[in-house]
């Protein structure tokens, strides 16, 4: 397939990028790695008047300490994250969740911020960011704001990111001491996206669960925190019985997706099964 024509600029600075966005208005679209956007443009499913390429902006790259957690530039690639000793040390969950995204080419080009901004309902990164309590630094020519990832996703491919905004940074606070983490997924074999993906961060204190976050992707029209699972687990002993009871709530309150790979009944059952498995694994890793 061949794309329709479009304009293209590659600004040298973030301010220039913001000015470009403002100038081209709603027809403009940001591109970083392009591995979600370009296929859609080739299929002519996304009509883009003007592309603003932020993939090489140094201001959007890099991984640094942030209050004991990490701030990751939005245009940092999967490959850069996977190769980072800091990430490996502080957030092994990101390594576990991202190391099988796409293939090597996708990981070399795809960016964390791109994935979050794209808001694909079956991407892994949104579930990971939810479990990690991440927040996002967004900037427009009018100023900047930070938003929690929890609440950022509104629907399939729809997020809280405004058309004139650039995601600058993903900020991940330090996890509680001794937290165990896990990401398990049931992969759709054709696309590699998750039919169900469950990210968990869990900590115990004095024999009971003192912190738990469960991010679920692939199940509904956007990634969500399984709050009923979390509230059932909090204060429990985090044993198998408690985990199984909590996992039963994995899809509570969600309009569960149905497609040729997983109908509603199967997907709902797998949300529970993979939530149970992921929580079990995180609990076993918690110290």
């Amino acid at each position, binding site marked *: 397939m061949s794309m329709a024509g479009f304009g293209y600029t590659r600004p040298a600075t973030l301010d220039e990028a913001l000015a470009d966005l403002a100038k081209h208005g709603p027809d403009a*679209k940001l591109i970083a790695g392009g591995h979600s956007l370009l296929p859609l443009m080739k299929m002519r*499913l996304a009509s*883009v008047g003007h592309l603003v390429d932020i993939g090489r902006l140094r201001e959007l790259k890099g991984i640094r300490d942030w209050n004991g957690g990490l701030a990751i530039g939005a245009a940092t690639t999967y490959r850069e994250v996977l190769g980072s000793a800091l990430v490996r040390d502080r957030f092994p969950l990101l390594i576990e969740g991202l190391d099988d995204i796409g293939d090597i080419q996708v990981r070399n080009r795809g960016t964390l911020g791109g994935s979050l901004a794209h808001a694909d*309902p079956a991407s892994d990164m949104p579930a990971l960011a939810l479990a990690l309590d991440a927040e996002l630094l967004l900037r427009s020519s009018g100023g900047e704001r930070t938003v929690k990832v929890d609440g950022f996703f509104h629907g*399939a*491919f729809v997020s809280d990111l405004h058309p004139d905004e650039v995601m600058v940074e993903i900020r991940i606070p330090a996890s509680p001491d001794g937290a165990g983490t896990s990401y398990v997924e049931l992969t759709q074999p054709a696309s590699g996206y998750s039919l169900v993906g469950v990210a968990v961060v869990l900590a115990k204190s004095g024999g009971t669960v003192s912190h738990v976050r469960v991010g679920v992707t692939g199940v509904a*029209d956007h990634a969500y925190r399984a709050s009923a699972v979390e509230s059932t687990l909090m204060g429990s002993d985090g044993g198998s019985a408690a985990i199984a009871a909590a996992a039963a709530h994995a899809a509570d309150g969600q309009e569960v997706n149905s*497609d040729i790979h997983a109908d509603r009944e199967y997907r709902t059952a797998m949300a529970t099964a993979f939530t149970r498995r992921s929580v079990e694994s995180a609990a076993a890793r918690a110290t």
Partner: protein
Amino acid sequence: MEFSGQTTIKAPRERVFAFLIDPNLVGRCGPGVESIEVIDDRHFKAKAKVGVGFISARFVINMELAEADAPSHAVIKARGQAPGTAVDATGTMDLAPGDEPDTTVMKWGANVIISGMMASVGARMIEGTANKMIAQTFDCIRAKLEE
């Protein structure tokens, strides 16, 4: 794909019916509608940008008021075309007086067939998206009537 639902509108049935058969009114509630052109009292043409997020296509939609039994029943048929994609939809609306005075219960059903590109590569999101758009359309109708 078949969708259906029911909504109670705080407006008398005659007013609801009049709204439903007026392209300039009901047309504004269609997803992404940018312009409406009335061809005759039963036919009109709309241009709409329909999609999810930035995945979207511009459709030219020919609509026909296929059945209109005032004040209780109307059927609108629509055929939309976008590059590589076609949408054929039939919307059925049945109106009954509500329990409260000056309210109307609208039962609606929609049959939607999507053909071409969007059907063959968008399968995983089509049903949820269509459902949402249809619900928004009928919410919009209710909201405008209750303004």
